[in-house]
């Protein structure tokens, strides 16, 4: 059971507030753009140098000079602005981007995140992930609760090389929504059809169930 990718994206979209500047990572985070609530205007930042990212172009209207950080062809919106890569990460470091959503291989109960490197596998590089996690003022991780082997990805501490330390504030997994606090993971919502027992069983890191925990509305 649990949420599918679209539902995870939809739940994260509920975190958006009107006027937010948001950076969406590759994968599930990209899907968040499809579920922005009515009446909420957000501006999407693409760290390769664009504020105001629009939808994919219509077929035949792709422009090789206009791509997102995932190297996909995109479009602009009225009010867009282009800039260079230093300014792009500068505005993130300076705390001007309100929310960053990204994927992870592992998150630790202290907010550490690992999402760039698996020992003994070909390393492709961290891209902008280390800059984003080190500098963004609010980070939500979108991910599956367990890996393909069924092992928890919410851990006491990360086993993989870190991307950043103590930076993740919230996780939306297929099983629920978790705040990352000084007391470790706090489950504040569970996905429809998922039991608290299942969440406890599949969370290796320190976990508290919020007294006000409720079923997720997606």
């Amino acid at each position, binding site marked *: 059971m649990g949420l599918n990718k679209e539902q995870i994206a939809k739940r994260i979209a509920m975190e958006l507030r009107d006027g937010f500047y948001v950076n969406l990572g590759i994968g599930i985070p990209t899907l968040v753009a499809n579920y922005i609530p009515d009446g909420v205007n957000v501006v999407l930042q693409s760290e390769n140098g664009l504020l105001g990212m629009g939808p994919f*172009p219509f077929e035949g209207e792709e422009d090789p000079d206009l791509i997102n950080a995932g190297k996909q062809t995109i479009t602009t919106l009225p009010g867009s602005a282009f800039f*260079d890569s230093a300014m792009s990460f500068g505005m993130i470091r300076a705390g001007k981007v309100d929310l960053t959503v990204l994927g992870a291989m592992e998150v630790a109960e202290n907010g550490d995140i690992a999402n760039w490197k698996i020992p003994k596998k070909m390393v492709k590089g*961290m*891209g902008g992930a280390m800059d984003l996690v080190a500098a963004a003022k609010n980070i939500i991780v979108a991910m599956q609760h367990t890996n393909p082997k069924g092992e928890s990805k919410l851990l006491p501490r990360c086993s993989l090389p870190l991307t950043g330390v103590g930076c993740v504030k919230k996780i939306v997994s297929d099983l629920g929504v978790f705040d990352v606090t000084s007391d470790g993971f706090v489950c504040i919502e569970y996905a429809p059809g998922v039991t608290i027992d299942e969440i406890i069983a599949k969370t290796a890191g320190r976990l508290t169930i919020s007294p006000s925990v409720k079923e997720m509305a997606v």
Partner: protein
Amino acid sequence: MKKVVAGADAAVHDIPSGAILMLGGFGLCGIPENCIAALVRKGVNNLTCISNNAGVDGFGIGLLLKQKQVKKMISSYVGENAEFERQLLSGELEVDLVPQGTLATRCMAAGYGMPAVFLLAGVGTEVADGKETREFNGKTYLLEHAFDADYAIVKAWKGDTMGNLIFKDTARNFNPLMAMAGKITIAEVEELVQPGQLDPNHIHVPGVYVHRIFQGTDYEKRIEQRTVRKRD
């Protein structure tokens, strides 16, 4: 003020084997296609390439990799390249992975004459190994040094004969930063115009930073991830 050169071969004529190059672009977007082709023709090797990515098999820096002209890549992301992977695993190629914003800012620092800056990315990770850290206002930063490149090779949309450059859309990316950072900066442009034809308020890189410029030809501008939506 004789910055205009005949073409890519003239522009790169004195780049020696072993040179440290900056190459603009993000993925295949905004890469100096003409100069890369000229470097392949020239056959220089043992190059150190500072570039966000390493191209793909058969395009971009992938062309230099295929000819084994690259000794070392300094990049933030080097996926999508089987030949790269082969050379890396066989030990033929060195790679220095640098977070993307740090890579950009180390270019900017060079262009602004700042020898070092303090940045956040990578604190507490293996990227910080061996690096000096320092706390400011309760946050820990890494001391990161400006890059020192012999040549910067960039691609702009428009340029004038005095070297002023304007970039288009996300093809800007690292290009202006590298243009400002090179000891010798080579710019290839899609359209080369006379002084006065570019609005001085719209210049992204003033000509003082550019030493050689030419109008490139036959741009392929390959798209890495073509994504479209259907018309309703």
